[in-house]
């Protein structure tokens, strides 16, 4: 980021939430970079940006789409880069229908399943290649849109991409063919104009043009622009597509794979990146290999579903990564005769995301729950559902530093206060295990730049506190001891595990031994026992083992490179002697794109790697992200498959066609091109399409998860304002690491809401007085910060008031500071690709004064629900208008309820 000439921070409050990473923005700014902050609120990030552009929460795709449109119509795209390195020239098959043709829907939608069949989005094969035969229809299970939407198929592809099946797609390098990706893109975003931005986002045409001009002036051969985002982009019902939109823009501007370019995902503290690499997610195995499903009963089927051997790029070697992983886990018990113990891995029967699990708890299907560094009673959407779910468990294990709210909800949670739960009735057995913190144990953090950094133990953990390593190693040992005599085949996976890590005198397993196992080593041959130095050494024949292919090389030559700490990172421009970045200590991914198709740097100023004709290899200031001896002009036979098939100008080596995808023929379950949909609880109609919401979003229609009515529908004025949740520098997420610390608590002691002076006047809110906020799910109270940092926006002729709510506080008696939790207000509606909740836009009412206590609080929420006429169906329509009949019935029900309920109406 320090190399960028322009930085757009959008969907992130970087200075507050990532203050340490913000040093690179400060450095770039010192070098003259322009910094924009696009955000609903004027935050500490805005304060140090060159310009703050207020935006209506949930309208980012309109703005980004308009920037794409601006780049295309003003001919600002980087022509050589786009033609050579993206799929702009690829022709899409003739069955494809765009959202522009179908008023917000793409072809292939199935109303029954609420998902898309992606068949019509596929590339058109080159005539006469015989490729069509290998195309669609071969893998019916994977083609099924329904399965995709229920299993979060998009995320399963991780850093790679799905197979495109058409291995020799038809191209038109002139980009003139109407079905080229380029022309489709042009048509798709043609109506995303500056005026549309004004009407949908509340951004003036002048501000838009300044942003567009600055970005385009700072892109091209000589200059680069980067985007930085965080959960302000991801936590939407169409969140994954926000990032896709930015990717398209950056590809068009030639800002990918180059210094100072890119779309920076600002991951959380301190190892959120690490816990997707070696995942804590239900649908991934280490290294972004998908979790097997019940349909994929043997290794062959499973591997085929990841990548075809015939496709280009490194995913074609998924068999080597998978077999090495299985060998690392099960050692000698994994061999060719038993599919390398593939059957030891449990199979997914459906979505098992965190919110489905909570539903399962309430339904009584989930008996036990481990919470490790997580405080869902405060930190997850719809806090009441989280706590009620836990009250149905048989046992709950909480491992944390403090008695967080998720460990104490049974005695002093909000539901105890309202009388919904009584301590004596709760049968959940809660176990609390004190955890060692990061200075009390050794190990790695993988931060947002994919950098593994080793931390050494500074002090011994106090009392009974243990590291996660020790806890799980011990747990595994005890379970295995219990099962030692078992002959039940279902116990084999546990008993055959390689579970023999060396321990120190305190019983702490050696973290370096585990990192070595992750790195992998040769099992047979002359190098047997030697650590692998690169994932390209992994084999599918069981001769190598490795716990996470993308981490291979971190322990190359027996050196823990995560612990490399040359001050300043060494003399190299990429500071490569500080920590170790996966893969292969490469600091910038896809850096082949930093050179032109002939292998020369696009410019001296932005050079990174280039082709050295004399040496016959790629050289430069970073580890080249390309087959190192593949000459720029080479055109190998695509049917070779894998890395061997990559042409000299295929920089995106993980994609099945080696190109950057402007158009995603597969992999995104909600459409091949990002399209603006309104949030689940938006105050305005979709200004672009009849289709209001993402038709494939995952809804949880439940009585305890109601949604506000559609804009304009009866009752929509009951929750007239938008709230958005966020973090403060002073606190850490749900507060487990900050609200127990006096030094941090005193800096932000109380839950507050941020409102504009206009809204405060409209609702009679006193500065620093109390306010009550009521959403369709809950009511909370907060102190009021009246500030010009919140600005009402004019959107499509109406004024939209946005209310800011930090989410750090929770109800309990143990923390130094407590307060109501903003997450109680949120409902659960999920992005279909990754199953993340939309937590940045919600509907709410605000009124002066504190909230009622006890059962009165429930009555307040119910009164609001009744006035708005909420039912489980409200707001949960898939295709807009499809529930017209149901809607009519709903209205009748509502009026009936209103008739009955008038007596209980508030005031």
């Amino acid at each position, binding site marked *: 980021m320090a190399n960028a000439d322009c930085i757009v921070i959008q969907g992130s409050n970087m200075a507050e939430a990532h203050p340490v990473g913000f040093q690179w923005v400060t450095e770039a700014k010192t070098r003259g970079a322009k910094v924009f902050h696009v955000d609903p609120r004027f935050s500490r990030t805005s304060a140090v940006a060159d310009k703050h552009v207020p935006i209506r929460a949930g309208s980012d795709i309109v703005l980004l789409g308009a920037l794409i449109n601006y780049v295309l119509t003003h001919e600002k795209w980087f022509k050589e880069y786009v033609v050579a390195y993206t799929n702009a020239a690829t022709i899409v098959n003739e069955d494809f229908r765009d959202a522009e043709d179908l008023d917000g829907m793409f072809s292939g939608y199935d109303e029954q399943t609420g998902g898309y069949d992606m068949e019509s989005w596929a590339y058109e094969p080159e005539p006469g290649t015989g490729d069509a035969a290998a195309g669609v229809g071969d893998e019916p299970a994977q083609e099924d849109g329904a399965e995709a939407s229920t299993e979060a198929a998009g995320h399963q592809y991780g850093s790679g991409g799905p197979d495109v099946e058409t291995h020799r797609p038809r191209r038109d390098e002139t980009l003139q063919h109407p079905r080229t990706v380029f022309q489709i893109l042009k048509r798709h975003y043609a109506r995303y104009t500056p005026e549309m931005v004004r009407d949908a986002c509340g951004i003036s045409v002048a501000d838009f043009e300044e942003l567009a001009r600055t970005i385009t002036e700072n892109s091209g051969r000589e200059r680069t622009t980067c985007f930085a985002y965080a959960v302000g982009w991801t936590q939407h019902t169409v969140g994954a597509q926000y990032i896709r939109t930015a990717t398209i823009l950056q590809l068009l501007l030639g800002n990918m794979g180059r210094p100072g370019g890119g779309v920076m995902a600002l991951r959380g503290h301190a190892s959120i990146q690490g816990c997707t690499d070696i995942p804590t997610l239900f649908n991934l195995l280490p290294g972004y290999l998908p979790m097997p499903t019940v349909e994929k009963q043997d290794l062959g089927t499973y591997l085929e579903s990841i990548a075809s051997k015939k496709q280009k790029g490194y995913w074609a070697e998924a068999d080597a990564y998978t077999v090495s992983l299985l060998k690392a886990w099960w050692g000698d018990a994994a061999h060719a005769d038993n599919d390398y113990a593939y059957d030891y891995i449990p199979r997914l029967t459906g979505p098992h995301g965190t919110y489905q699990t909570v539903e399962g708890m309430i339904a009584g299907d989930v008996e036990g729950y481990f919470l490790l560094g997580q405080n869902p009673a405060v930190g997850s959407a719809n806090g009441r559902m989280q706590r009620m779910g836990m009250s149905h468990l048989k046992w709950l294990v909480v491992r944390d530093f403090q008695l967080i709210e998720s460990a104490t909800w049974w005695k002093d949670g909000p539901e105890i206060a309202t009388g919904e739960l009584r301590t004596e009735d709760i049968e959940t057995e809660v176990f609390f295990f004190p955890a060692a913190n990061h200075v009390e144990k050794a190990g790695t953090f993988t931060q947002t730049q994919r950098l593994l950094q080793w931390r050494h133990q500074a002090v011994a953990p106090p009392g009974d506190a243990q590291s996660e390593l020790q806890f799980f190693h011990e747990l595994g040992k005890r379970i295995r001891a219990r099962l030692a005599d078992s002959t039940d085949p279902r116990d084999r996976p546990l008993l055959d595990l390689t579970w023999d890590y060396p321990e120190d005198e305190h019983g702490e397993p050696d973290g370096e031994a585990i990192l070595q196992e992750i790195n992998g080593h040769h099992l047979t041959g002359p190098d047997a026992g030697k650590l692998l130095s690169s994932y390209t050494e992994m084999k599918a024949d069981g001769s190598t083992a490795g716990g996470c292919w993308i981490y291979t090389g971190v322990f190359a030559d027996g050196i823990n490179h995560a612990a490399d700490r040359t001050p300043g990172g060494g003399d190299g421009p990429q500071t490569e002697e500080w920590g170790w970045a996966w893969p292969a200590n490469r600091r910038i991914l896809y850096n082949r794109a930093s050179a032109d198709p002939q292998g020369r740097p696009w410019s001296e100023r932005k050079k990174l790697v280039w082709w050295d004709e004399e040496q016959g290899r790629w050289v430069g200031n970073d580890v080249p992200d390309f087959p190192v001896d593949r000459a720029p002009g080479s055109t190998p036979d695509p049917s070779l498959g894998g890395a061997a098939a990559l042409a000299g100008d295929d920089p995106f080596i993980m994609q099945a066609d080696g190109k950057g995808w402007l158009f995603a023929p597969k992999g995104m379950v909600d459409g091949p091109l990002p399209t603006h949909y309104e949030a689940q609880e938006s105050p305005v109609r979709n200004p672009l399409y009849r289709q209001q919401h993402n038709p494939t979003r995952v809804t949880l229609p439940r009585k305890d998860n109601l949604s506000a009515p559609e804009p304009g529908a009866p009752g929509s004025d009951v929750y007239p304002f938008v709230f958005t949740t966020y973090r403060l520098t002073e606190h850490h997420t749900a507060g487990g690491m900050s609200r127990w610390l006096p030094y941090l608590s*005193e800096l932000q002691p109380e839950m507050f809401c941020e409102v504009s002076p206009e809204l405060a006047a409209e609702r009679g809110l006193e500065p620093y007085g109390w306010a009550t906020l009521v959403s369709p799910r809950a009511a909370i109270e907060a102190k009021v910060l009246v500030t010009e*940092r919140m600005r009402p926006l004019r959107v499509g002729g109406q004024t939209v008031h946005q209310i800011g709510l930090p989410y750090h506080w929770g109800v309990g008696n143990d923390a130094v500071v407590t307060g109501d939790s903003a997450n109680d207000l949120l409902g659960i509606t999920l992005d279909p690709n990754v199953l993340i909740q939309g937590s940045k836009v919600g509907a709410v009412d605000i009124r002066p004064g504190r909230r009622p206590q006890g059962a009165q609080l429930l009555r307040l929420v119910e009164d609001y629900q009744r006035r708005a006429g909420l039912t489980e169906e409200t707001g949960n329509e898939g295709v807009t208008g499809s529930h017209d009949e149901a809607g009519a019935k709903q209205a009748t029900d509502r009026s009936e309820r209103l008739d009955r309920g008038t007596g209980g109406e508030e005031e």
Partner: protein
Amino acid sequence: MQRLTAPDSAAVGDNPTADAHYAHPRARKGFFTDTSICIGCKACEVACKEWNRNPVDSNYELSNSSFDNSEGLGADTWRHVAFIEQDRSRIEAARESGRALVSLGMPQIRNADVPTTAGEAITTAITGAAPGPLSAAAVPPASGLPPAPELGDLDVLSSLGGGPTRPEDARAVDTTPPDTPEFRWLMSSDVCKHCTNAGCLDVCPTGALFRTEHGTVVVQDDVCNGCGTCVAGCPFGVIERRKDGIAQPKTERSAAPVTPTRPGTPEPARNVGVAQKCTLCYDRLVDDQTPACAQACPTTSIKFGEREDLVDAARERVARLHAEGRTEARLYGANPQDGVGGTGSVFLLLDEPEVYGLPPDPRVPTADLPRMYARAGIAMASMAAASALAFMLGGRK
């Protein structure tokens, strides 16, 4: 024994350590706090409290001042981040006042024949009003002669290309960027100034306050008797006597022997009743470590180093911001001619000092001592004379 220093004693110069008669005085250390890149993360406040084990200073309620909940410097809070929300008119006023400070300084750099009256005006402006930007160097010597041409690096406007040489021309150049924002949020981390002429040190009757070999001013906790004279002696309101408070987290995680107090019971604070303030991490400096706040600052808004270098860097930064049209930037504490002889902690501010809660014209109270002694002497002499006269006159009766 402390020596009283006169504020205008240029001989003391920028390094008061010489004055403290150290056998091996070190270069004067200080902070340069560049508020233009502060992100208000308060890491400095927390790092300071952690290192110095200072008590909590809060009733855990919002302090009704934007995101500022620690309110100000005191016995328990040695770094404090101010948050100031401003609208456009205030930004424009700040740009104008900053520009005026620079414009006044310009002619003497380019023109040797600047009228004496202008020189006097500058002296007044700099010493009498806010210690303005570039003031340390822009101030002419007492003779009124223009400063030496080596100050060319301060020539802000020349970097704009053919800059004007007269004040009126300087004002004619529109350096306001086209995008003066509608709103801004200032953040600034305040700290003890470690003055060249330190009021607290001057008035301390016990010698608990002393000038270190690094030129900083530090309280010796075990010598201070809590008389509080220094509290009134500080023109910035920094030093304070400690009341009480807790320094321990509610759940004690340390593996140290269990204290006899019940868990959750506040520990007695250290140094209760004793004057407390920033030591510029004296205990870290003796080990060549960076002070905790500067170490923790993620954006290098707080810079630590030799004061001379820091002042140079600060001037460069102001010049650069002015060249960008951000004429609201100015320095605070860099001027050796101000009421405290300049400060060890130098600040780059984006508005008048008052906006940040800093005194515009800090003045060490002992500055008036010679005059007070002189007047007292005159008064005594007059009294003596009057008495003598009375006796003489009475004698005649």
